[in-house]
């Protein structure tokens, strides 16, 4: 891979990893290059973003390099963020709702474990919109809150009951697995 290709691939890689970003070590591993070459690549990429036509740049927080939007256009982002949230449920909100709907009762920690991101603000918003509610507490240290969906949630998604949610793929797979188990065990029983 030549330098041009590495620069392009690094941009793509930084894009995919998003807020997680990459450490110089990780970059060195991926491209099989030395630490110096990594710094050189990152500098070149930073230079490329130092252009008024570009809306993104590279930042370094806590040793991780990541792409970020330039501050100049924060009003545009705010406009989109607030208006889109008024117009429809965003994917992030839908994700939280979906996890709660399918996995209720569920704690915040479990939701964040599945999503891999802090979901505090979205949970609060969904609660204030009355789409979810606290339905109890877990009997473990800290007694974490258990969340579930509300009747407003059912109304919003035009459901008469939570059972009307479409089947999950993992549920189908577990069913099939159990059927498989059943067959293998049946066969074993016959042998005995």
């Amino acid at each position, binding site marked *: 891979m030549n330098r041009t290709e590495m620069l392009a691939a690094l941009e*793509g890689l930084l*894009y*995919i*990893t*998003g*807020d997680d970003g990459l450490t110089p070590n990780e970059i060195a591993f991926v491209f099989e290059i030395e630490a110096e070459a990594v710094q050189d690549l990152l500098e070149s990429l930073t230079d490329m973003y130092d252009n008024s036509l570009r809306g993104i740049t590279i930042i370094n927080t806590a040793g991780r390099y990541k792409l970020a*939007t330039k501050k100049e256009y924060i009003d545009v*982002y*705010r406009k989109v*963020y*607030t208006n889109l*949230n*008024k*117009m*429809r*449920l*965003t*994917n*992030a909100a*839908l*994700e939280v*709702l*979906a*996890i709660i*709907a*399918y996995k209720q009762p569920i704690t915040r920690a479990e939701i964040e474990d*599945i*999503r*891999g*991101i*802090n979901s505090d*603000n*979205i949970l609060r*918003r969904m609660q*204030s*919109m009355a789409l979810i509610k606290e339905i109890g507490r877990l009997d473990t240290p800290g007694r974490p809150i258990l969340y579930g969906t509300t009747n407003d949630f059912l109304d*919003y*998604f*035009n*459901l008469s009951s939570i059972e*009307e*949610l*479409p089947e*999950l*793929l*993992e549920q189908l797979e*577990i*069913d099939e697995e*159990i*059927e498989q*188990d*059943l067959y293998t*065990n*049946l066969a*074993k*029983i016959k042998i*005995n």
Partner: protein
Amino acid sequence: MEYKVKIDEFEGPLDLLLYLIKEAKISIDNINVAEITEQYIDFIHNMEKLNLEIASEYLVMAAYLTFIKSRMMLPKASIDNEEIDYEENPEEKLKMRLKIYKLFKDIIPYFKEQEEERSNFITKIPTDLSNEFKLDSKEIIIADNTVYDLLSAFNKVLKRYQLHRPIKAKIKQQNITIDDRIVELRLLLKQKQSLRFIDIITSDSSKEFIVVTFLAILELAKNKLIYINQSELYQDIFINYIGEEGVEVHE
């Protein structure tokens, strides 16, 4: 005739018929139903000999082909060739079905290409801006989300979860453990000495419960606490109590 292909390689009887037609290097319009029927039935018979499971649809088609074949052997009524009545002429009807099915079959490579193409483009998850910007509105003006949006969001999150983590062992919720079930069965067997297998599961037992019961029985048998017998195939299976663990069976 040697069969290198297996029935589970086909997407159904029409797919098998198309395969046979292709093998014979003829077009759908020119198929000789009598001939193709023989080949089809031959194929099915050979699969049966190999003890392959054959979906009922294949047998229905075999019957249908035989019906067409026998109908063709009857003296023909005067058929107006200008107007083929598909409802009345099963042979033409079959050809039409094959053509329609082939239309969709032939478009599959396009979908495969598109699937492959898309898999090369990777997108990132949306940046979470909920900490940056405060939202005051609790209302949503246009509420057009459906349950499929929920399902879609769930699938995405799951895909991401699998991407970022090594495959986690699936945690299945079991209402009853195998150990619990062993204890239950032992108590029951101690009282009754012998049980019919069908009596320990009920029609409303969940799949998990049935599996757990199976595993419990296997465990009991392994530990020589029970023995299982069946007088004949398809007869009742009996589970018989031997005795307590560690206690030798006395003569």
